[in-house]
Structure formats: structure tokens, C-alpha cells
């Protein structure tokens, strides 16, 4: 390491003050660089040896380029977050968290290998028994695994009424009718039949066909009947009237009417914003709201999505990760169901212009109280590097700090994984070691996943809430002195993945919150007064 100006001078000054020998000053190491925010945990540390099998063929069949997703959830109720990895051309893997960031593969014992060609995953307590269940989307048949509350699961797809083949991608459990039972939106990608799939080539090599080569396909909305079964309300709700090419979906309340809406990212056709009008009806308002197209009226290649109030104005904003050259979209909510794309002014546009985005999550990595952003990227076509010197298949992870009006891209201080390129798809955020610092799991296509552990570097104080497995639609408010912040707990988001359902509130330097309030769907409230930082609190709705 080279001795540089300022360091050299300060060292000389220190030497004079402490009367050390000049030799000592020159030979002593420079101050160590600040530790990275995220360290990469190797398989030797975590015990996670899973590697995704994409089923890559010379023919380059469309489903091969889509997966996988990943879920962080506590399947056995021991207070430690476990991880489920979706596989495509092989069995998926459930890893039980043993503590101390070590995991054990319990797939066989738990009975959750998945079936057909796995793509995505979500979790939800669909039967309200207090234990999170597992839902895996597939090219083929989806699988609903009911948690038996004894470390095992049972495939209940058929009896639940969810056995339907297709090319299913995003699954979002949300209670659209506020009856206390989580309903299910099931996103479908293109109308796909391998027998009629066109052959797309560069010279003598096959490549994945553009989604425009395929027709759109309707998605599904299922109503949870509260008895372990679901009824198909796709037509009566209006969802089926809008065929799309769904990759990402998030349920949130964009118009603050207490009814959960749905924002759906489509590839090569307009995005959908389904507004929940109550009584089981949704209106699609994407064009009028300004979230369906680019500023020039072009549909983009929407993949990952998320929602948050990034600027603290009390309105939920929407995010879409798009294809390279399209720039990703940050739709700022103007109120009255109008949005404007703020990707340019916030710096996200330029920072994402060269990448194709999948996993996306707003979360508060520095625990200062506002939501930052992490993005997992990779070109869909593994052969793109042979055709272009500008684009590569593997692309960098991006970590942005929310600075109010700007999102600032972090450099190497984010961690070594953020200086390398990855074939990333799914992304989930969760606290794997219960230290309050949010960790990240990246699901790579055709490769081993990445486990990124937050070292605590540069982060403020925190306070955790554990509202149980189905808090969607709840509103969390917390105050530090006079400053009140709000977070709406939404469902879905990212890409084919599910996050730790607990909520981590950033407190900055404060050692306690003045108060914390959870407003549950339906209006009941739970309030904590002066809860101390650095602890998780179990919160339940008042009886």
C-alpha cells in the first residue's frame, strides 16, 4: 500500500506526540479501511451447498431463463429465519437455520422438493393456523405446501383448488376483501407451448426469443374461502380481462382507501395497476395513472417490482426493474391515482440504464429510518456477451442509499459481492442472525446462491416487530421525538421471492422509539410506548 499525503502527515504528527521512532511510523500499517457493510458468507460457513439447475439446453427454451426465486421464513417457529431455494431442473431445498448463520438441508424430512419446473416461491399462513405455508410457482403445476407445524409439510394443491398447469411466475397472498383470509394473485407469463415455440437464432446459435414472440396470457385471482380451499374469481374481479406477461407483482394500498391494490409488472406489454374497488372488483388504471408505459408510451420489460413511500410524503410509490437501455422506473405517487417517473431526478435512471433487473427490495440497510434499495441484475440471455461488447450476462448487484431526493449508488464499501457480476434473479431480505441488521439472499440462475451478511457497519439503532406471518395491509407508525414515520406492510414484490415477514424499524442514533403503533387491517391498533432499541417485539392485534 502506498503512503499518501494526508495519512503521512497525520502519522508524522502522531509520531511527534508520542515520541515514537521514525522507523516505527513508516513501518506501521495504515489505518484499516472501514469494514464492508455486507460480507459474503461462503458455503463452508453457512452449510448451504444448494446450486440452482436452470435446465439450460442448446435450444434455449424460454422457461430456462426465468428462475429462480428464494424465500426467507421461519417454518419451524424457532425464531430463526430459514431459507427455501427454488430449483427448476431438480429438487428445491429447504435449509433450517441452526443459529450462528449455519444452516442444514432438511428438504427431505420436511417434504418440500417442489415439482415440475420450479420458478418462484412465496410464503403465507393461508389457513390461519399460525404457521407459514409455502407456495411454489412453476412451469407446470404450482405447489401449495401446508405447514404441519411439526417440521413437515403436506402438498395440498389439489384439495385447495390450485392445481392448474401453466407458466406461473409471481404469486402474492393478500386479503383483497378484508375478511381475514389471505387471497391469492397468481401471475402468468406468456402463453407458452414448447411445441410451437419459435426458433430464435444468432447465426448458428439459438437464443431466448423476445417475449413479443409469444401472446399474453391472463393471470388468476383466487378467493380464500376460509376452509382451506380457494375459489377462482378471476373473471368476476376483472383480473382475467387483462392478459399480460407477468414477472413481478406487489400488493399495496396506493390510494389509501384501506383496500389492497395490485401493481403488476409485465414484460413487453403495459404494466397493470389494479385498483381494488371493493365488493371483489378491480379496475385496471395503469395508463391513466402513468405506470403502464415509458414516458414515450412504450411498454417496457418489467421484471422485479416493489413499493414503498420512498420520500416520506405519506403516499406509496412504485418501482419496476426493467431491461437494459429502458432504465428502471420509480413511479412517485402524486395522489389521486397519478404517478410520475422519478428515475431520472433520483439518479436511479442513469445507474440502471445498462442493466436488466430482477430482484428488488426497498429496505433500510443503514437503519436511519428511510428505505434504501437493493437490486439484483443479469441479462436474460446467457450468450449476450458473445454478441455485444457493451452488455454482459452477469451484472452487478446495486445497493443505493436513500438521500431524500436522490438514491446514491454505493461502491466497494457495500461489500465485495457488490464489486462483482452475478447471474442474479431472485432476491430476499431478512435478518438471518437476529442482530437487527438486514441480510440479503440472492438466488442466481444456474449457480449457487449468495448469502450476504450485514456486518452492522455504518448502521443506526433498530427495533424489530414480529407481527406474525400474515400482516399484509397493516400500517406501522413510529416516532423518534416529533418525527413520525410510516410503513405499510405490503405483500409480494422483488422477483419470485419472499422476504422475512418481520419489520425492522431504523431508529438512527436513538436508543429507543418514542412510540410505535401497528394499525391492523380493519383498524385495530397495538401501541408500544418507549420501546428500547435493539430488540424484537412480538405484536398481535388486540382482542
Amino acid at each position, binding site marked *: 500500500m502506498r503512503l499518501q499525503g494526508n495519512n503521512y502527515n497525520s502519522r508524522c504528527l502522531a509520531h511527534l506526540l508520542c515520541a515514537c521512532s521514525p522507523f516505527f511510523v513508516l513501518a506501521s500499517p495504515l489505518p484499516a479501511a472501514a469494514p464492508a457493510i455486507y460480507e459474503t458468507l461462503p458455503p463452508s460457513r453457512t452449510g448451504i451447498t444448494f446450486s440452482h439447475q436452470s435446465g439450460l439446453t442448446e435450444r434455449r427454451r424460454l422457461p430456462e431463463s426465468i428462475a429462480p426465486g428464494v424465500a426467507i421464513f421461519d417454518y419451524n417457529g424457532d425464531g430463526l429465519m430459514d431459507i427455501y431455494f427454488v430449483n427448476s431442473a431438480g429438487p428445491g431445498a429447504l435449509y433450517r437455520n441452526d443459529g450462528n448463520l449455519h444452516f442444514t438441508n432438511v428438504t427431505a424430512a420436511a417434504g418440500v422438493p417442489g415439482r415440475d419446473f420450479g420458478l418462484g416461491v412465496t410464503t403465507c399462513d393461508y389457513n390461519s393456523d399460525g404457521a407459514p405455508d409455502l407456495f411454489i410457482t412453476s412451469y407446470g403445476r404450482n405447489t401449495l405446501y401446508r405447514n404441519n407445524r411439526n417440521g413437515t409439510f403436506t402438498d395440498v394443491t389439489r384439495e385447495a383448488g390450485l392445481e392448474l398447469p401453466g407458466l406461473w411466475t409471481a404469486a402474492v397472498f393478500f386479503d383483497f376483501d378484508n375478511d381475514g383470509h389471505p387471497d391469492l394473485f397468481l401471475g402468468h407469463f406468456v402463453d407458452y407451448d414448447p411445441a410451437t415455440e419459435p426458433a430464435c437464432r444468432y447465426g448458428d446459435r439459438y437464443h431466448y426469443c*423476445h417475449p413479443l414472440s409469444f401472446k399474453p396470457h391472463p393471470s388468476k385471482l383466487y378467493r380464500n374461502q376460509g376452509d382451506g380451499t380457494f375459489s377462482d374469481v378471476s373473471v368476476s374481479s376483472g383480473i382475467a380481462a387483462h392478459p399480460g406477461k407477468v414477472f413481478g407483482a406487489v400488493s399495496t394500498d396506493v390510494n389509501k382507501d384501506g383496500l389492497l391494490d395490485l401493481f403488476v409488472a409485465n414484460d413487453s406489454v403495459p404494466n397493470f395497476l389494479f385498483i381494488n374497488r371493493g365488493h371483489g372488483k378491480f379496475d385496471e388504471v395503469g395508463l*391513466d395513472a402513468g405506470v403502464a408505459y415509458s*414516458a414515450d408510451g412504450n411498454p417496457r420489460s418489467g421484471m422485479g417490482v416493489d413499493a414503498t413511500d420512498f420520500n416520506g410524503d405519506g403516499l406509496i410509490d412504485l418501482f419496476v426493474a426493467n431491461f437494459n437501455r429502458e432504465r428502471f422506473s420509480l413511479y412517485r405517487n402524486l395522489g389521486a391515482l397519478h404517478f410520475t417517473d422519478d428515475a431520472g431526478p433520483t439518479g436511479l435512471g442513469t445507474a440502471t440504464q*445498462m442493466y436488466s433487473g430482477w430482484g428488488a427490495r426497498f429496505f433500510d440497510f443503514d437503519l436511519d429510518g428511510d428505505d434504501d434499495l437493493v437490486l439484483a441484475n443479469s441479462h436474460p440471455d446467457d450468450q449476450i456477451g458473445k454478441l455485444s*461488447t*457493451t452488455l454482459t450476462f452477469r451484472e452487478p448487484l446495486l445497493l443505493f442509499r436513500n438521500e431524500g431526493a436522490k438514491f446514491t449508488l454505493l461502491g466497494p464499501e457495500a461489500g465485495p459481492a457488490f464489486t462483482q457480476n452475478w447471474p442474479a434473479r431472485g432476491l430476499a431480505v431478512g435478518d438471518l442472525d437476529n442482530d437487527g441488521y438486514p441480510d440479503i439472499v440472492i438466488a442466481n440462475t444456474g449457480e449457487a446462491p449468495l448469502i450476504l451478511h450485514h456486518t452492522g457497519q455504518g448502521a443506526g439503532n433498530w427495533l424489530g416487530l414480529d407481527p406474525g406471518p400474515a400482516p399484509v395491509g397493516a400500517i406501522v407508525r413510529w416516532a423518534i421525538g416529533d418525527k413520525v414515520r410510516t410503513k405499510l406492510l405490503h405483500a409480494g414484490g422483488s422477483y419470485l421471492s419472499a422476504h422475512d415477514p418481520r419489520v425492522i424499524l431504523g431508529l438512527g442514533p436513538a436508543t429507543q422509539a418514542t412510540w410505535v403503533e401497528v394499525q391492523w387491517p380493519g383498524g385495530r391498533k397495538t401501541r408500544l410506548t418507549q420501546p428500547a432499541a435493539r430488540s424484537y417485539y412480538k405484536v398481535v392485534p388486540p382482542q
Partner: protein
Amino acid sequence: MIPLVVALLLFQPPPVDSAETLTRQGRQAMARNDFDAARTSFTQAVLKAPASPQARFLLGFFHYVDNDFVQAETTLRKARELAPQDPRTALFLALTLDGLARPAEAAAAFEVTLQLEAKAKRPNPETHIAYARMLFAEGRLPDAQQQVSRALTLNPRSREAHYEQARLRFEAGNFPAAIAEATQALPLPSEGTTDRQLHFLLSRAFGRLGNTAKADEHRRAFEAIPAGVVR
């Protein structure tokens, strides 16, 4: 930007170097969308005449159109060294840097282009439009407005300039003015701005004013025109 590209190709000065045949073949190949043949021809032309700014520009231009911005930058920078007063090369270098998501460098290159165009007494409204679109995408709306105003001064009948003016008015929340600009643009000849873009903007602007009948009318017109493939 495509009409500008076509115009540039049509109004090339006659090739004078030994790569004449190859560059002509390359242009013909591009015209028939045979990019492999075009790449080969332009690459060979540069090999035959490495000091030819014309051959170098065409190869860089080809890489730009082929979305290979890394190659385009290298080639266009070399072409700029060979012909530092050529605004056309400077313009495509600016567009390439914009494509590489380096807006500060692109802005500097646009400024150089504008200076060269002024020096050559060949002011080009399309340069202002391209610059304005980049600034708009960056959220630098007042700067974008400056460029659009200059484009409108140079060509008051520019459909592109009126469209960009309409977009700026829309972003400013002045929906009646946005409608007026887009309506003015619709009958003007297109250099690249499509009817689809204008109907899209008009539908949104009428919608924001609560005029659902007009919003629906323009929405139907917008949806009746297929979108181009972006990838």
C-alpha cells in the same frame, strides 16, 4: 433519431479514399438491415484506410446503431481525432455516451457538437432535441427547456420540438399547454416522433384535465398503433 441517421447517410460526401467501395457496400447493407455484412464492410474499410475519418465514422456509427456502445465510443473518439471539426462525429459520440449512461460526458459532447455546428454555420435542431431528451430523462427540465426552445427557434415546424415541448408542459402540470403543443405537432411531418407518442401524451393530458371523452379518443388512437420493439 432515425431520420437524422438516414439524412446523414444520404448526404455523405463522396468517398475519396481506397475504402470507397467498402463503405458504399456497408451503407447498402445497413439499408437492408444486413448488420453482419455492414460490420464486415465497415471494418475492412477502416483496415484499408485507417486515417480516413469517413470510414472510421461509419464504423462508429454502425456500432452505435447496433447498440454496441463500447465499440462505438472507441471508434468515434478515433474519428474525432481524425476530424475534430466534424459536428456529425461529435453528435454521435454524444449519443453514444448517453447510451453508455454517462450523462455528464454526454452533455459535454453535446455542447461541443453545438459549438462545432455554430462554427460551421450549420445549426441543427435535431442536436438540440437529442440533447433535450437526455436532459429530460435526467430530470433536468429547465435545461431541457432551453434546448427545446432553441430547436423551436431554428425550426418552428419541428414535430419533434413541439412534442418535447408538450412533454415539458405535461411534467410542469400545465396540461392545457401540453395539449396545445401536442395538437400542433400532430399534423406536422414526422422526423421520428410517432403519432402513437402524441396520442399517448394527449390521452394522459386530457385525462388529467378530467376530459374522459377526449382521453379515451386519444387512448384508442394510441392503442391502435403498434409499439416498436425497443430491444
